[in-house]
């Protein structure tokens, strides 16, 4: 049985085009897409009514709190949230309790994910045992067990020798390492970005330079080892020239940023609102605009949700003590559409950063509307307005900074390998 989408605004991140047309799916794969697509017999037809059809989002860096804190987010709740948000592949973080740092834990996680989540789940494994920066994990076994990358999350490996060996070993296996560019000495204890706002509020703050210092260190080790590297979040203007030089020098480096750093700035914290506490902290408006520009030019390759569930108890604390992070699987697309509606980016550009580039970086065939690619798709109305109510979220944790905000863009349906995993009622 095949499936034909007609009358769709096809968002093609590979060719950077938006055309009205159709898309044909057979056996879970895209077989044809374009203005004129012929339907074979016995085809189910979905009339998209002129709405947008794009490759499903590939979200690198989703925190699902299994094992350890299932009350914050389980594979089931995260999977439902992802489906409702148009995310067809969650690339999950290893910063759980305990960390996902051995093949047995990774296999447990994969099994849980396959049972419970309706979308694709690809795990990142820890780079060092216990994420404590001393000994590398079993990269080989973990790759065999399905790890797609290695990262210690926001724990920065401070010992350069340990990191250089991990990079060297990872390079020999062709494994992708995801780093968190941040100087841990400067950023220790920080809850905000240093500057006028943090000074007024009396919050411990980190200079934006700490990000560049972390990135410079990692780039030196990339040059030394030849490792395949992705920076999880670049959020400051000062880090961009270093990134640009590294790319120009031909190093195997890509960079991401989080949706929150693209759509919010430090002033949003206002009166110590802890739902706006993320890691790294929100930056200045100048930084935000520079990062948007870098996404547009392609210097920053990937936009992630950096989905980090936190329960009420972790957030209802004085700002310094409150846990960092925000849920974002369901708000990633509408928040990214703010950048489209504001005229910063095109639809094809946001899907290049949210689907095509992350898929390419991980070597996945998805993230595009080409024949042969899996039919991981999101159908959405880019203009439909709504007011976000955090209690409507499917995530177990409701810590979104967008609560009560007017947004535009509703997901109408999400498909994984041609099967609907979400349909708006």
């Amino acid at each position, binding site marked *: 049985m095949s499936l034909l989408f007609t009358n769709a605004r096809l968002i093609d991140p590979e060719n950077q085009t938006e055309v009205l047309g159709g898309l044909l799916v057979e056996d879970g794969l895209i077989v044809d897409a374009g203005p004129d697509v012929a339907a074979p017999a016995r085809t189910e037809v979905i009339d998209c009514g002129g709405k947008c059809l794009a490759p499903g989002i590939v979200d690198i860096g989703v925190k699902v709190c299994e094992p350890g804190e299932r009350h914050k987010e389980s594979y089931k709740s995260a999977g439902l949230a992802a489906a409702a948000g148009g995310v067809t592949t969650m690339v999950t973080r290893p910063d759980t309790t305990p960390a996902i740092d051995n093949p047995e834990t990774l296999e447990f996680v994969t099994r849980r994910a396959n049972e419970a989540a309706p979308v694709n789940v690809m795990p990142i494994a820890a780079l060092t045992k216990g994420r404590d920066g001393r000994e590398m994990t079993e990269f080989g076994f973990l790759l065999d067990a399905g790890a797609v990358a290695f990262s210690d999350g926001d724990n920065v490996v401070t010992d350069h020798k340990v990191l250089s060996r991990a990079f060297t070993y990872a390079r020999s296996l062709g494994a992708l390492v995801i780093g968190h560019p941040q100087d841990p000495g400067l950023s220790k204890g920080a809850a905000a970005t240093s500057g006028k706002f943090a000074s007024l509020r009396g919050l411990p703050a980190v200079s934006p330079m700490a990000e560049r210092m972390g990135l410079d260190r990692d780039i030196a080790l990339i040059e030394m080892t030849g490792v395949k590297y992705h920076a999880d979040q670049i959020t400051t203007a000062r880090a961009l020239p270093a990134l640009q030089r590294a790319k120009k020098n031909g190093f195997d480096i890509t960079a991401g940023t989080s949706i929150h750093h693209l759509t919010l700035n430090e002033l949003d914290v206002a009166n110590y609102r802890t739902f706006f506490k993320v890691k790294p902290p929100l930056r200045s408006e100048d930084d935000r605009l520079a990062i948007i520009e870098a996404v547009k030019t392609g210097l920053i390759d990937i936009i992630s949700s950096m989905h980090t569930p936190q329960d009420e108890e972790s957030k209802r604390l*004085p700002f310094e003590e409150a846990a960092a992070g925000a849920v974002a699987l369901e708000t990633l697309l509408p928040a990214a559409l703010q950048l489209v509606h504001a005229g910063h980016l095109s639809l094809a550009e946001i899907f290049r950063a949210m689907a095509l580039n992350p898929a390419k970086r991980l070597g996945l065939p998805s993230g595009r509307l080409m024949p042969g690619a899996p039919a991981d798709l999101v159908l959405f109305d880019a203009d439909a307005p709504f007011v976000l109510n955090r209690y409507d979220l499917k995530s177990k944790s409701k810590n979104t900074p967008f609560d009560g905000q007017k947004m535009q863009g509703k997901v109408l349906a999400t498909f994984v390998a041609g099967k609907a995993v979400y349909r708006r009622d």
Partner: protein
Amino acid sequence: MFRQKHLLGIEHLHPQEITTLLDLADQYVDLNRQDVKHSEALRGLTQINMFFENSTRTQASFEIAGKRLGADVMNMAMQASSIKKGETLIDTAMTLNAMHPDLLVVRHPHSGAVDLLAQKVNCAVLNAGDGKHEHPTQALLDALTIRRAKGRLHRLNVAICGDISHSRVARSNLILLGKMENRVRLVGPPTLMPSQIDQFGVEVFEDMAEGLKDVDVVMMLRLQRERMDGGFIPSEREYYHRYGLDAEKLAYAKDDAIVMHPGPMNRGVEIDGELADDINRSVIQEQVEMGVAVRMAAMDLLARNLRAERQNKPVEV
């Protein structure tokens, strides 16, 4: 005019509200100098002092202020109690709220903690210092001291000196003095200056001689040694040499410049002991006296607003 429900910071106050409060505090200074120091302004109201951080002076000042106005005052040493048992700030607030306090005086080591607490209770909350954020009653008592010594609280040159970065006193003071149209200078080593503080309409100096030139008021800050991660300054003795206030450095200020310090002092670190005791220059003891009066005024005004708000509410039967 005084429309506030809480006193969380100087940031929220209108200049006219500051004047109202200081005028009332002047009256309480007179009351406090009489033999019978008592008023009934807070009669029937319950005041709870919650100090999550050690304090002798501020807590005593609030306690005396409440008692002189006839409130039932209770002190809770929070650092010793439930916080150690893992109770969250919100839970503590809810528990206290159930006891129907009317005035809650709170000091907390984290910036913004008092704001958070104020959102969860039904009484007037006074910030007695939150982290590195604000310490509004200190700024108000400093303002009253200046106004009484100088005869006005505008068009003065005020130098705030020392550890600005860790000081909530400095933040509240620079906001208040700015609102009342004074020129504020911050003087201290760059390692103890908050980032981009020059954008707050103040002048920043790294040298005491330049910073104190022709000022009317010299406000010294305690070198918050207990807050230091270590390594902000090379040594105490070098700090005293370069930034400690002594007669020699004070000579750069106007001849009639007054010397202030929020206490407790580190004699021989940020201020010369003899100068601190010089009754012709130092108003440090007056600051303590004004502290009680200002806190009485603040609680009196908040209690009036609290009573007015309660009377406007329909009675539930």
